[in-house]
C-alpha cells in the first residue's frame, strides 16, 4: 500500500502547511499587497472615496520631501550607532563571560535581562532616568562633575537622538552577548593550545583564532539586528514621538506618523515601501545565510 501512495505526489506536507499559509496570506501578504496598491493613490483614511490614482506621484513627493531626507539621515545614524555599539558591547561581554570564574553562571543569566523587556518599559525607564528635574542620570553626572547643570536630554535637539539610542543599545547588547558566547563555545580548545605553542600573543590569538571561528555567527547576528533596529520605532514613539521638532524622526517613525497621525495612508505607504526597498539588500544577505539551514 505504501508503494502505491509513494508513486503519486504526496500531498501530506501541503495539508500540514495549509493553515500557516492561509493565515499568513490573509494577515501579512494581503495587507502588504494593499499597501503597495494604495501607495499609488493619494488615499486619506477619513475620505476613502475621494482617493485619486496618482501613479508614482507619492514616491516622487517622497524624494522632494525634506523630512524624508532628515529621517533617512537619522535612520543611518540610528542603525550604525545602535547596531555598532550593541555589537561592540556584546562582543566584550561575551569574551568576558566565556572565561571561567565562580559566579559566571549567574552573570550570564543576569546579563540577558534587558533583552526580555518590552519597548514601552525601555522607553519608560530611560525617560525617567533622563528626567530634567529629578532624573538619576543628571544627578549622577553632576555628582561626578561631568556636567555643571542638569541637561534636558530628551528635549534638546542635539542630545535627544543619542539619548534614545543609548536606551536601545542597553536593550539590545545582550542579544549579541548571548549569540557570540554560543559561537565562542564551539571554538575547539585545541586551536588555542596550538596557537599558544606557536607563541601567539593574546591579541594574535583573538584575531587569528577567535574572530575567524565566530565570523559566521557575528555576520548573521549583525544582519538580523540591522533589520530589527532599522524597523524599530516603538521606543522612539514612547520616548519622544519624534520630537523635539524632527530631531528623533527615523524612517519607520515618519512613515507611521504620516499614515497614523496624519491619516495620509497613500503617502505613508510610499514611505514604508522606500524603507523596505532600502533594507532589501540586508534582508537578502540574511536570507541567503539562513537558508543554508534548509539543505541540512
Amino acid at each position, binding site marked *: 500500500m505504501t508503494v502505491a501512495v509513494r508513486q503519486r505526489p504526496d500531498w501530506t506536507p501541503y495539508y500540514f502547511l495549509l493553515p500557516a499559509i492561509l493565515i499568513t496570506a490573509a494577515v501579512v501578504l494581503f495587507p502588504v499587497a494593499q499597501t503597495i496598491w494604495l501607495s499609488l493613490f493619494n488615499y486619506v483614511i477619513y475620505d476613502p472615496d475621494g482617493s485619486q490614482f496618482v501613479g508614482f506621484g507619492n514616491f516622487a513627493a517622497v524624494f522632494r520631501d525634506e523630512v524624508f531626507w532628515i529621517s533617512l539621515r537619522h535612520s543611518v545614524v540610528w542603525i550604525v550607532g545602535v547596531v555598532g555599539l550593541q555589537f561592540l558591547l556584546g562582543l566584550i561581554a561575551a569574551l568576558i563571560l566565556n572565561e571561567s570564574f565562580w559566579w559566571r553562571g549567574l552573570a550570564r543569566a543576569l546579563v540577558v535581562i534587558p533583552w526580555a*523587556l518590552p519597548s514601552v518599559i525601555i522607553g519608560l525607564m530611560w*525617560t*525617567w532616568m533622563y528626567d530634567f528635574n529629578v532624573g538619576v542620570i543628571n544627578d549622577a553626572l553632576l555628582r561626578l562633575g561631568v556636567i555643571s547643570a542638569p541637561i534636558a536630554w530628551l528635549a534638546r535637539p542635539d542630545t535627544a537622538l543619542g539619548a534614545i539610542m543609548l536606551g536601545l543599545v542597553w536593550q539590545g547588547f545582550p542579544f549579541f552577548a548571548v549569540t557570540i558566547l554560543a559561537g565562542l563555545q564551539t571554538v575547539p580548545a585545541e586551536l588555542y593550545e596550538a596557537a599558544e605553542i606557536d607563541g601567539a600573543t593574546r591579541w594574535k590569538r583573538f584575531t587569528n583564532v577567535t574572530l575567524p571561528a565566530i565570523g559566521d555567527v557575528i555576520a548573521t547576528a549583525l544582519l538580523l539586528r540591522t533589520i530589527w533596529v*532599522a524597523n524599530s520605532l516603538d521606543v522612539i514613539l514612547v520616548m519622544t514621538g519624534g520630537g523635539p521638532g524632527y530631531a528623533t524622526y527615523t524612517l519607520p517613525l515618519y512613515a507611521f506618523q504620516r499614515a497614523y497621525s496624519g491619516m495620509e495612508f497613500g503617502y505613508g505607504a510610499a514611505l514604508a515601501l522606500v524603507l523596505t526597498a532600502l533594507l532589501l539588500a540586508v534582508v537578502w544577505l540574511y536570507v541567503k545565510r539562513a537558508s543554508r539551514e534548509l539543505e541540512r
Partner: protein
Amino acid sequence: MRGRSASARLFQIELPALLIVLFALAPYVWMILTSIKPQAELAEWPVRYWPRAATLDHYRELLSRTSFAGNLLNSLIIACGAALVGLAVSIPAGYAFSRFRFRGRRPLMTGFLVINMFPIVLLIIPLFVLMRRFGLIDTYLGVVIGHSTFSIPFAIWMLTSYFSTIPKDLDEAATIDGASRYEAIRHVILPLVAPGVVTAGIYIFITSWNEYLFAMMLSGQNVRTVTVALQLFIGEFTIQWGLLTAGGVLIAIPVTILFLFVQRRLVGGLTAGAVKS
C-alpha cells in the same frame, strides 16, 4: 589556556564582568527602587538613591484606582491565545518542513523568513482596515491575529529546527512497527520535541505580552493590553513616576522570569542555524 594569577583574574575578568552585569541591571533596579519610594522622596534633589521608607502604596493605588489589573488580565489572555494559535499552526508546518522534501519547500521556508523582516509599518494600517471590516477591532481575537503576523513565521523556523534534531529513523521505526503517520507523530515525535514546543510557546507569549504597536492599533477599551495602558498612563500621570514604575515592574517581572527560563534554548532558533547548539 594557562591559569592566570588570582589578582589578574580579579581585575581582567571579574571586575569587568561585574561592570557589565551592573550596566545590564541598573535601569531595572532603578525602576524597582522608584516604585517603592514614597512620592515625597521621589521629588527630592539631589536624588535619594535608597528609599528611606519603602512602601507598596504605588502598587496599591495602581491596582485599585486604575484599569491596570484588567489590562494585566487582557495581556495574559492575548499572550496565551497568541501562543496557542501560533503553536497549533506552526507545529504541523514545522513537521512538514523538517520531514518532507517537496516542491516549493525552499521558497516557502524563505518566504516565512522574509515575512519576519517586513517593517511593521508596511502592514499595520491595512491590517487595521481589514480587522475593522470583520468587526475584530477591540476583540481578543483581533489582537491575537495581529500578533500571529510575527509569531507564526518565527515559530515555524524555530520548530523546524527542533524537529530536525530528531532522527528520521524514529519515524520509520514507528511506521514499521505498524503505526500510522499520525500515531507516530503523536506518540513518538511530539513527546521528543516537547521542550522545543514549550520554548516556542513561551517565546510567542513573551513577544505578544511585550508587543505595543499592533496592540495599540487593534485594541480599544475592552481588550487594552498592559503595554498600551502604560503608555497611556505616561501621558496621563506624567509626574507620578512611582505609579508608572510600579506598572513597569508588574509588566516586566513575568517576562523576565519566563525569559530566564527559555533563553538558553532560544539562541539556536533566533539565529537560524548560524550557531550550532
